[in-house]
C-alpha cells in the first residue's frame, strides 16, 4: 500500500526517531551522533524555559477548551434558526477558521499593538493609560488566547450547529408542549444531542493548542522575554537555531506523551460519555 508506506516513512518513523534521538547528542552542522543515555532528560529537569513553556501551553489549552466550547454553544444556539439572516451569519461565522493562523496572528497584532485599534478605541472613551497588550507579560498571554479562541470558536459553533440540526422536530415540539423552560430544555434536550460535537471540538482544540506556533510568532515572537514562548517554539529554537537536536528531541518526546495522553483520554472519556447519555 503506497499510502501506508508514505505514512510509515514520514510520520511513524519520525515518531520512533524522536524517541531514539532523545538519547543522543546531535548537531546538524557537524553531523555528530553521540550516545549520552538519559542526560538529555536530566538536563530537561533543570531547564527553566521548558517548565515555563509547559505552563504557557497548559494555560492556553485550558482557556481554549473552556472558552471556545462555551461561546461556541452560545453562538450555535443563537444562530440555529431558519431565517435568511441567520443562514448568512452561519456561513460567515466560520470564516475565521479557514484563515491561516499566521494571518490571524498578524491581524490581531495590528489590532493589539500599542497604537493599534483597541487602544485607540479605549482612548476614544478617554480611558487614559495605554495598555501594552503585547508588550506586557501580564496581557500578552491573554492576547494570544484571544487570537487562538477566535478561530476555535468559529469551528466549535459550526460543529455544534450541525449537531443541533440532528434534533428531531417531534422531540422539540413535545418539549415545547410540556412547557419546559429555556435552561431545562437545554440540559435535557440539547445537551445530550451535543455530546458528539463536544468530543470533536475538544479534541480539535487540544490538537491546535498543543502545536501552537504561528499565531504566537506573529503576535509576540515569544516575548516579551520568554513569557509567551510555547513548547513548539522552544523545540524549533533549540533544534534549528541552537543546534541542540537531541535535547530538542527529548522535549518533543515529552510533548508527544502529554498531547497524546491528553487527546486520547479526552477522546475515550468523551466518547464513552456519548454512549451513556
Amino acid at each position, binding site marked *: 500500500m503506497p*499510502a501506508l508506506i*508514505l505514512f510509515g516513512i*514520514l*510520520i511513524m*518513523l519520525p515518531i520512533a526517531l524522536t524517541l531514539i*534521538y532523545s538519547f543522543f547528542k546531535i548537531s546538524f552542522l557537524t553531523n555528530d551522533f553521540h550516545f549520552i543515555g538519559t542526560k538529555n532528560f536530566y538536563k530537561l529537569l533543570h531547564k527553566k524555559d521548558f517548565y515555563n513553556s509547559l505552563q504557557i501551553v497548559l494555560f492556553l489549552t485550558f482557556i481554549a477548551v473552556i472558552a471556545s466550547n462555551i461561546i461556541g454553544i452560545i453562538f450555535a444556539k443563537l444562530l440555529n434558526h431558519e*431565517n435568511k439572516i441567520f443562514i448568512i451569519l452561519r456561513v460567515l461565522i466560520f470564516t475565521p477558521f479557514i484563515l491561516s493562523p499566521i494571518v490571524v496572528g498578524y491581524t490581531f497584532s495590528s489590532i493589539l499593538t500599542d497604537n493599534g485599534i483597541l487602544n485607540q478605541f479605549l482612548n476614544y472613551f478617554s480611558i487614559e493609560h495605554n495598555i501594552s497588550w503585547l508588550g506586557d507579560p501580564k496581557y500578552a498571554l491573554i492576547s494570544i488566547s484571544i487570537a487562538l479562541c477566535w478561530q476555535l470558536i468559529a469551528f466549535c459553533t459550526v460543529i455544534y450547529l450541525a449537531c443541533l440540526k440532528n434534533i428531531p422536530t417531534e422531540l422539540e415540539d413535545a418539549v415545547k408542549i410540556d412547557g419546559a423552560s429555556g435552561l431545562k430544555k437545554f440540559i435535557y434536550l440539547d445537551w445530550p444531542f451535543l455530546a458528539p460535537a463536544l468530543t470533536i471540538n475538544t479534541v480539535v482544540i487540544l490538537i491546535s493548542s498543543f502545536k501552537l*506556533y504561528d499565531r504566537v510568532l506573529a503576535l509576540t515572537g515569544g516575548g516579551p522575554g520568554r513569557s509567551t514562548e510555547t513548547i513548539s517554539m522552544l523545540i*524549533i529554537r533549540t533544534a534549528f537555531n541552537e543546534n541542540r537536536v537531541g535535547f530538542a528531541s527529548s522535549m518533543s518526546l515529552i510533548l508527544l506523551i502529554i498531547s497524546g495522553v491528553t487527546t486520547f483520554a479526552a477522546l475515550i472519556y468523551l466518547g464513552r460519555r456519548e454512549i451513556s447519555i
Partner: protein
Amino acid sequence: MPYKRIIIAVVLSSIFLFPLYMIIINSFKFEQEILNNPAGLPDIITLSNYINIFSNSGELLTKSFINSILFTSFSIIIVLQLSSMLAFAIHFLKYRTQNIIFIFLLLGLILPTPIILIPVFTILKFLNLNNTFIGLLLFFSAYYIPFGTLVFRGFMKNIPKETIEASFVDGASFLVCYFKIVLPLLKPAAASVIIITGTWVWNDFINPLILLGPSKGTTVTVGLYRMVGQYSVNFGELFAFMVLISLPVIIAYLFLQKYFIEGLMAGSGK
C-alpha cells in the same frame, strides 16, 4: 420575525467578525487614514496598497503564489488517490487489522507537527530531498493521509456491502470495482477532502518554513512572514497581502461550504 434575536445575533456576529472586516476595509485605505480612523469606511477607496505590493515585493508574491498553488494541487491529488484506495482496501481486512491501522492513523491525525519536524528533516536529508519541492510535497501528503482516509471511510460505510460484493460476483477485479463502482459513489467525500486538505496545505506555515529551508523556498504564508521581516511594510500593504493570500480559500469555502462541514464531521466522527 424574531427581531430581538436577529438584533442580538447580528451585533454579536459583527463584533466577532470585526477583525476580518478590519483587514479588508483597511487594505483599501491610505496609511494616514488607517492610523486616524481604523474602524470606519474609507473616505477614498484606493488600490495603492495592492499596487505597492506588486512593485515592492512582486517577485516574492508571485513566487509564493505559484509555489502554494503547486503544493496545494499536487498534495490534493496524492492525498485523494492514496487515501481513497487505503480506505477501500481496509474495507476487506479483518476487523482487528482494521482497528490497528486506524489507531496508527488516529495517532498521525492528532500529532502536532513540530514534534516530528526534526526527524522528518533528517529523513529528507538522508533521501537528498531536504529543501526541495518534492520533499515538502511528500510530507504534506503523508501528513494528510490519515484525515483523508477517515473521511473516505466515513462515507464508504454508507455504500451497501452488497453493491461491492455483487460487482465481484460479476467478475470485476479489485481495481475495476474500485474505479467503476466505489469511486463514483465517493464524489461527496472527495469534495470534502479536496476543500479541507487544500485549505490546510495552503495555510500551513511551520512545515514549509522549516522543510523548505530558511532562505530558499516560499509559500504564501512564508511569503507573508518574509515580507514582514525583510521589507518595512506599513499596515495597508500588510492587510492587502493578507487579503490576497486569504481570498482563494475564502472563495473556495463559499462555493463548497457544505462539503467543508460534512467532511470535518466525517473525518472527526469515527
